[in-house]
């Protein structure tokens, strides 16, 4: 019996140590990006002079499993330290109901401000209204909420993913001189990031009669392996495909492998993604990927915190209710020039 108890204790200890080891790894990495980012952001530098506030902020992020949000969180952490805010984060792992509960739980702690990166444009509106009714200043980022409810928030900081879809589709159209076949591979059905890009891209492709979207499918993950399998099957059906459109870079990197496996030369097929992950930038440099869109989400996180902090600490409202992040397009031909002196944190 004693032996069993000892082994049980050892099992719990081993589990705890595993978690502790992981947490330590995470913290170290997070810390290492902090000072660099603070130094690279002029807004943060100016804010660093007044870290005297006791203002509290609740931050609800719908997932931390996508590079876009990982960078955004790092940016937020850096700006929070600079502005002397007291912030608590919650992550919903892609579950709308959980994010709803996260926001409700945050309201009970009565923070001064709240930043929400919502899962979609409408699911969290009732919870956000509760927060505003409780006197909490609300700012959204990442995905925009529906227009009818935007008046409840201080501001939205982020991209227009429909526009990102348009930009990417237009690049394909221009590269193919308005004639060719395209396959679109999206990530998760129903996810605003995926659906908005699809809407924007379809809009552009539909306006060019010479362009045919021969296949459109979802991997239902952000995994390169799933994208590799799906691309293989699409290339089996359409061996003469002219372009592959991916929602993000992790998927596009799976596509690169499928194209290589098929023995296609990089200039035989256009392949584009979004995010500007380090691996994708290397792939664009090598010519395996033709183009990616840097979303600069680190900077977006910094901006979101600073806009809210300006209001909470100084009463300064943003001049516009929607503060758009600017995507940066990099292609194989101009990546060296664009990325010269540009870090991932300041884009």
């Amino acid at each position, binding site marked *: 019996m004693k032996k*069993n108890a000892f082994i049980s204790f050892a*099992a*719990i200890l081993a589990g705890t140590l*595993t978690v502790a080891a992981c947490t330590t790894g*995470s913290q170290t990495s997070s810390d290492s990006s902090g000072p660099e980012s603070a130094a690279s952001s002029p807004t943060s530098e100016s804010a660093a002079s007044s870290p005297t506030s006791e203002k509290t902020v609740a931050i609800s992020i719908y997932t931390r499993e996508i590079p876009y949000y990982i960078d955004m969180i790092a940016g937020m952490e850096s700006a929070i330290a600079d502005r002397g805010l007291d912030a608590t984060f919650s992550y919903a792992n892609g579950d709308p109901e959980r994010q709803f509960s996260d926001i409700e739980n945050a309201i009970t702690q009565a923070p001064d401000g709240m930043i929400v990166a919502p899962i979609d444009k409408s699911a969290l509106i009732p919870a956000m209204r509760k927060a505003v009714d409780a006197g909490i200043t609300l700012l959204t980022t990442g995905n925009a909420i529906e227009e009818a409810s935007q008046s409840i928030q201080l501001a939205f900081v982020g991209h227009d993913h429909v526009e990102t879809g348009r930009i990417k589709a237009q690049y394909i159209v221009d590269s193919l001189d308005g004639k060719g076949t395209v396959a679109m591979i999206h990530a998760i059905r129903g996810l605003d990031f995926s659906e908005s890009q699809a809407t924007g891209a379809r809009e552009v492709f539909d306006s060019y009669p010479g362009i045919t979207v021969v296949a459109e499918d*979802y991997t239902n993950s952000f995994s390169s392996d799933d994208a590799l399998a799906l691309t293989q*099957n699409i290339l089996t*059906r359409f061996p003469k495909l002219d372009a592959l459109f991916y929602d993000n870079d992790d998927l596009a990197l799976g596509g690169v492998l499928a194209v290589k496996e098929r023995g296609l030369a990089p200039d035989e097929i256009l392949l584009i993604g979004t995010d500007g992950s380090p691996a994708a930038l290397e792939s664009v440099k090598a010519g395996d990927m033709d183009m990616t869109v840097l979303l600069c989400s680190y900077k977006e996180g910094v901006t979101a915190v600073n806009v809210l902090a300006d209001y909470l600490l100084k009463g300064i409202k943003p001049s516009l209710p929607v503060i758009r992040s600017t995507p940066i397009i990099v292609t194989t031909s101009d990546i060296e020039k664009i990325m010269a002196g540009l870090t991932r944190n300041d884009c």
Partner: protein
Amino acid sequence: MKLRANDTVATQLESSPRRTLGSISFDQAFVPIVVIVMALYLCITNPFFFTVTNLTNLLLQGSILAIVAFGITFVIISGELDLSVGAGMALVSVVVALTARHFESIGIGILLGLSIGLLIGLINALVVTLLEVPSFIGTLGMLVIAQGCALALSQGAVVSGLPEGFSSLSNTRIFGLHLIVWLVALYFMVLLFIQKYTVFGLRVFAVGANRRASVVTGISTRRIISICFVISGFSMAFAGVALTTRVESGQPNAGSLLALTAVAAVVVGGTSILGGRGSIVRTLWGVLLITILENGLDLEGIDPDVKRIVIGVVFILAASTDFARRQFDRRKHK
């Protein structure tokens, strides 16, 4: 009464009116028939299906699911469940990629990855057998821990920049087939041997069919269940290494649905989710069914939303053969 480590063992332990292995029963033949009919249909209707390229892809696409499903078959037959395989595979993938990159050695990366998988299996075993936590909850907890570790270690991003060897490893072919396909075939043979011709294999069925009876007959159920979880842990590690080699990167977000798909492959193949009955051969048919179905639907260009509905319907139909078999047996005995 001599026990044999196959479907009939559970039959003898449960004393239920089932057929012996000598004759192929309806439920044993059902999934293979569905797979063959589906493959024939695709051969006839789709010009791309029966091509060397697609068949090679098909085997590659089913490899990771097969590895994980083979391992999980032992856990399910023992009457338990392992939900941590997908997240465990992602963690192994990240660990392999990070260490291989750090030490510039594929060997160290793979060795450490395999160790992590075995460790996860061992912790699962201890949690289920010694702490007596239901395996559903215990392995769900491990799923969350492994997911958190994979994300923390990789900062949520794909781990790239691996040593060149990974690329050559994934492209190695023997008699036209990728190395990984041969390794999966070898793994299948080894596990089949363990299941059919070892005392352990026999006891897994006994433990899953009637745990109390197993204890009375002197079987250490804890030891048997623990070994099943360690086999599953090794399988997730093997799958993690295969994944890293295949996509030449560490994938923290991979395998989110893998555990459920693997359980589906096992159950659809005909192994009872309640334990005590099934076989790794059935799992192979389950894996083939899912892989050919997904590949076929992609090749047919079915709408993505309809595709999901079709997959769900096929899962239910294939798994309902157990019900059909019971009805058949009842009528026969009336």
